[in-house]
C-alpha cells in the first residue's frame, strides 16, 4: 500500500518535473510545477511532515508560483521556439550524472531504519507544534538570519524593479 502511494506520488512528481522542463510555454511549465508541488506536499504527508506539506502548499504553491504566473503574464512571455542550443551537450552531461547518482544511491548500503515505516503513529499530529517549538527555540538564530534574507530580498526587489529612482538614474 505504502509503496503504491509512494509510487503514485513519485511517478507524478517525476513526470511533472520533466514536463516543467520540457513544456516550452512558460504558463504550462508553471502549471506542471504547481501539480508537482501538490504531489510533493502529498509525499510530505506520507512522511509525517504535515507542517511542511501545509507550508509547501501555502507558500510555494500559493505564493511563489502565483508570483511566477503573475510575472509570466506581466511580461507576456511567449512560448519558447526552441531549447538552448546546448541541449544535446547538456544531455550528454546530465544523463551520465543521473546514472552515476542512481547507481551510487542504489548501490549504497543504506538500510532502512527500523523506525522508518509507513505506520501512522509517531510525532505526526504534533508535527506542526514540534517544528514551531524548535523553530523559536533551537533555531532562533537561523530564523533571524532568514528574516534578514527576506529583508534583503524585499529591498532588493524594490531597488531592482522599481521604475525610476528619484532624481538620479537614467
Amino acid at each position, binding site marked *: 500500500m505504502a509503496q503504491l502511494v509512494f509510487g503514485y506520488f513519485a511517478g507524478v512528481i517525476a513526470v511533472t518535473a520533466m514536463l516543467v522542463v520540457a513544456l516550452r510555454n512558460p504558463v504550462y511549465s508553471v502549471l506542471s510545477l504547481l501539480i508537482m508541488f501538490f504531489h510533493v506536499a502529498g509525499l510530505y504527508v506520507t512522511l509525517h511532515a504535515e507542517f511542511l506539506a501545509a507550508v509547501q502548499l501555502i507558500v510555494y504553491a500559493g505564493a511563489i508560483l502565483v508570483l511566477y504566473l503573475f510575472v509570466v503574464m506581466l511580461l507576456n512571455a511567449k512560448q519558447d521556439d526552441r531549447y538552448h542550443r546546448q541541449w544535446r551537450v547538456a544531455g550528454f552531461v546530465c544523463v*551520465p550524472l543521473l546514472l552515476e547518482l542512481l547507481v551510487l544511491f542504489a548501490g549504497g548500503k543504506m538500510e532502512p531504519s527500523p523506525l522508518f515505516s509507513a505506520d501512522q503513529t509517531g510525532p505526526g499530529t504534533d508535527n506542526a507544534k514540534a517544528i514551531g517549538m524548535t523553530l523559536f527555540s533551537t533555531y532562533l538564530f537561523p530564523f533571524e538570519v532568514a528574516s534578514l534574507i527576506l529583508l534583503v530580498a524585499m529591498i532588493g526587489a524594490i531597488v531592482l524593479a522599481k521604475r525610476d529612482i528619484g532624481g538620479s538614474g537614467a
Partner: protein
Amino acid sequence: MPYALIPLLPLLSFLILGLAGHWIKDKAHLVAVPAVVLSFLLSVTVFVDAIDGHNMTIPLYTWLVSGSLDVHIGLSIDRLTAVMLLLVTGVSSLVHVYTIGYMHGEPGYARFFSYIALFTFSMLMLVLADNLLQLFIFWEAVGLCSYLLIGHWYERPSACAAATKAFLVNRVGDFGFLLGLLLAWVTFGSLNYHEIFSAAQETAAQTINLLAPFGGIWEVSLLTLLCLLLFTGAVGKSAQVPLHVWLPDAMEGPTPISALIHAATMVTAGVFMVARLAPLYNLSPVAMDVVAVVGALTMVFGATIALTQTDIKRVVAYSTVSQLGYMVMACGLGAYVSGMYHLLTHGAFKALLFLGCGSVIIALHHEQDMRNMGGLKDTLPITYWTFVIGSLALAGFPLTAGFFSKDDLLVAAWSSGSLGQALAIAGLFTALMTAFYSFRLVFVMFWGPSRVDPHHADHVHEPSGVITGPLIILAMLSIATGYLGIPSFLEPVFATDAPVEPHGAAGIGIMIAATLAGLTGIAGAYYVYVLNPGLPDRLARRWESLYQGSLNKWYVDEAYDRLFVRTTMSAAVALWKRIDVGIIDSAVNGIGRAIAWGGWLLRLVQSGETQHYALAMAAGIVVMVTIFFLS
C-alpha cells in the same frame, strides 16, 4: 738594489709620459731618453758583473698566491739575461734618440715615447723573469706595446688592421704558450724556472694521453707536448711559419719601432724563450727537431718572399722573418749559443737596416716603395754607408758581425747531426738569397738613376744628427759585436753534459761555403740590378707564377683569410642568426606565444552565455563524480 732600476726607469718614464703626456707634449724625450740611457748604463754594469759569473735574483713582490700556484714578480740575472739587457736597453736607447728626429712634430709624440718606454720596461721584465708566468705576463705586455705602436697612426685603416692582426696572431701563439704554462704548472707544481728544470729530468718519461677526453689513446711524451706548446708561443712572437704573417704587416708602424720591436728585441723573445728553457727542450728530442724544422722552414720561406718585395720595410721585415728562422733553427739544433749570438748581432744590424730605411723614408717624405727611389747614395751619404754596412752584416760578408754569428750558427748546425746537416745546407742556400735581396735593396735604393718623385727630389737631404747618430753607432756595432766574444760568454749558460764535438774541417768548409754564398748573392744582385737593369722584369715574366707567388707572400694571407677569418665571421653570423635568434630566442618567444595562444583559446570558452557557464559547472560535477565513481 740599483739593478731594479733597470726596468723601473722606463716604467717611470712611461707613467710620467702616459699620465702627463698631454702637458709634456714636445718635451717628452727629455723624460724618456735619460731614463732609458740610465737604464742602459746600469745594464752595462750588470754585464760587467755577469762576467764575474754573478747570478742573482731580486724579488720584487708577491703577485699571486693561490694554493700551490704562487707567483712572485722578481728580477733574475744571469749571463743570458745580461746579454739581453744590453741588447734591449742599447737598441732602445738608440731608438729613443732616433725617435726624437723621426717623430718630431707628430701629434702623438709623447704618446709614442710613453709606448716605447712601456715596451722597454716590459721587454726588460720579460728577460728578467725567473718564472714562466712573469715571462708570459710581459710576453703579452710587449705584444700589447707592439699592438699600440703598430697602430700608432690609428687613422690609417691599414695600420689599425695590421695592429689587430699582430695581436690576434700572437694570441694564437700565446694560446699554446698559456696551455704549456698550465701544463708546466700541473706537471711540476711550480712555474719557477729552477724548480721546473730541476724536476724536469724526473718527468722525462711521463706520457700524456691526448685522446683521453674522447676515450681514445694517444700517448705522447709530456715534456714534448709541453715544449711544443710553449714553442707555439715562440712561433707567434718570433714570427715563425705559420704565424709569421703579422710581422710584415707590422711595418705599418713607425720605423723606429720596426727597428726596436720588430727586428731587434721583441720578435727575438721567442728565441730567447727557447734558449731560456733549454734544459727543458734538451730533454725532448722530438720537440727540438720540430723547433729546428720550423725555424728552417721560416728561414727559407722568409727569404724567398724578401726577394721580390718592393716596399723597402717589407723586404727588411721578411729578412727578419728569415733571420729569426736561423736563430730558431739553431736553438732547435741545440746550438743555443749560436742562436743567441746571431740574435745579438742581428739585433744590431737589423735595427741599423730599419733605421736606415726610416732615414730614407723621412728624406723622401714617407715614400716606401723602392721603385720610386734610386741614386740616393750621393744625397744621403751617411745613410748609404751605414746601410751598406748593415747589409754586409746581413749578407754575412767576412769580418762583419753577421759573418761571425752566421758562420758560427751554420757550423754548429752542421755538426749537430744529420738533420742539422740538411738544415745547414738550407741555411747556406738562404744565405745566398739573403745576400741577394739585401744588396738588391742597396742597389735599387741607392744606385742607379733617381726615380724619386720630382716634387720631393730637390728637398732630399740627410736627416739631422739624432737620426744619423744612432745609424753610425749601430753600424759600428754591426761590426763590433762580432769581436766581443759573446759565444764564450754565453757558453756556461747552456753548458750540458754532452760532449762538445770539435768543429774541425767541416767547420772551416761551412765557413767557406757560407762566405761564398754571401759573395755570390751580392755579385748576383750587382749583376741583375746594376749591370742588367732590365733583367728583373724578364726574369719575373719568365717565372711568372713563382714571381707572383713570392710577391704575394705565397698567398698565405689570402689562405688564412679564407680559412680562418672569413669562416669565423660567417660562422659567427650564421650561429647568431640560426641558433641564437633562430632557435633559442624563438623558443623563448614561442613559449610566451604558446601560453598567450592557449589563453586565447581558453578565453573563447567564456562565451558570455550564462547557460554555458552552468553547463561547465555541471560538467565539472560530472567529472568529479566520475572520478570517484571509477575509483
